[in-house]
């Protein structure tokens, strides 16, 4: 329906999985629950003020992204390593699993914006335009952050 926001429940149902996946990937399964609740409570509170033609998915990913950053910072203050790998279900050759684990740790070690770009791209499955909206930068800057992030990962995890 044009010109009217969808009922919040429909918005929640159609975005809950992408937000959940993104949060599990960026803060781990344990913290994901709180971040998920905070993300959608913040979304609910701002919801009626949105313009109906807004990109709702990019908007909610922006909120989720900010909640994930808050969670990272709170964790850093508690001196727990940032972005420890979520419970890893090992599949395939053991050496590959070890390498994936190293990659995951490397993702956690990226600077904020690069990590966000990589996570939003590969785990949130967002196009560059929506990554830019979520991070709050230009599309060009989002591309650059993604590229820089991948370059660092390439160095950290040799082929």
């Amino acid at each position, binding site marked *: *329906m044009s010109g*009217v*926001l*969808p*009922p*919040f*429940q*429909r918005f*929640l*149902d159609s975005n*809950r*999985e*992408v*937000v*959940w*996946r993104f949060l*599990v*990937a960026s803060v781990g*399964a344990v913290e*994901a*629950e709180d971040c*998920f*609740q905070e993300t*959608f*409570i913040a979304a*609910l*509170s701002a*919801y*009626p003020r949105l313009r109906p033609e807004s990109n709702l998915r990019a908007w909610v990913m922006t909120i989720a992204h900010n909640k994930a950053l808050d969670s990272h910072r709170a964790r850093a203050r508690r001196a727990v390593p940032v972005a420890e*790998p*979520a*419970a*890893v*279900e090992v*599949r*395939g050759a053991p050496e*590959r699993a070890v*390498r*994936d*684990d190293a*990659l*995951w740790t490397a*993702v956690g070690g990226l600077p904020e914006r690069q990590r966000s770009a*990589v996570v939003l791209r*590969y*785990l949130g*499955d967002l196009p560059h335009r929506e990554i830019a909206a979520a991070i709050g930068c230009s599309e060009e800057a989002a591309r650059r952050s993604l590229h820089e992030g*991948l370059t660092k*990962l*390439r160095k950290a*995890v040799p*082929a």
Partner: protein
Amino acid sequence: MSANRREHDDELGEALGRAAAAAELRTAPSARSRQRSAQDAAAAAARLSTRVAADGLADVSYAPVDSPFGTLLAAGTAAGLVRLAFPEESVDSVLDGLARRISPRIVEAPAPIEPVRRELEDYFSGSRHSFDVALDWSLIGPFGRRVLHATAEIPYGGVLSYAEVAAEAGSPRGSRAAGNALGSNPIPIIIPCHRVLRSGGALGGYGGGLDRKRFLLELEGALPARGA
């Protein structure tokens, strides 16, 4: 970009995909872990809806309610029950209407609807003859309000004619206008528009279909049960 490096990027992308799989994401290799991620997300969303409804953060909450007619959809605001929809009405169109006319802050949550569910259950079992749940009249215009207020006064087991309800509503617009107001009753059964008949006793119309009107009137003893 050299062929070598491009290859490494592809590998990196694949490895990120596997990392995602490890975190039980969409790109997970097995349908089972993908399904589990979807279930976790659904459970988190259900906790969210329940919580925001309990904390009064949503403007409208709704839930399905069983009835002899099938599954009804009940929706309420802080003021009370605002909408009761028959099974033929699509959930999407009912919710779109509520988003447009009341607020898009709508969540599915059974707890606020529980008193409505219980009272309807008692009503259909014959043990309840009047409803105590609060009603939100905000979907009803000024003329409709007069007509439906008059309708709400008709006791269990009683009936009035369209002309009588129009007169009660102080309407110079007569029984046709009253019929239209009754036909767009957003809270049927509980605002008992089924208790309004044609002069002479013919059933007239009903938004939920005449079979249901007859069923309700028989339940209330206002019509002899068929076959009796």
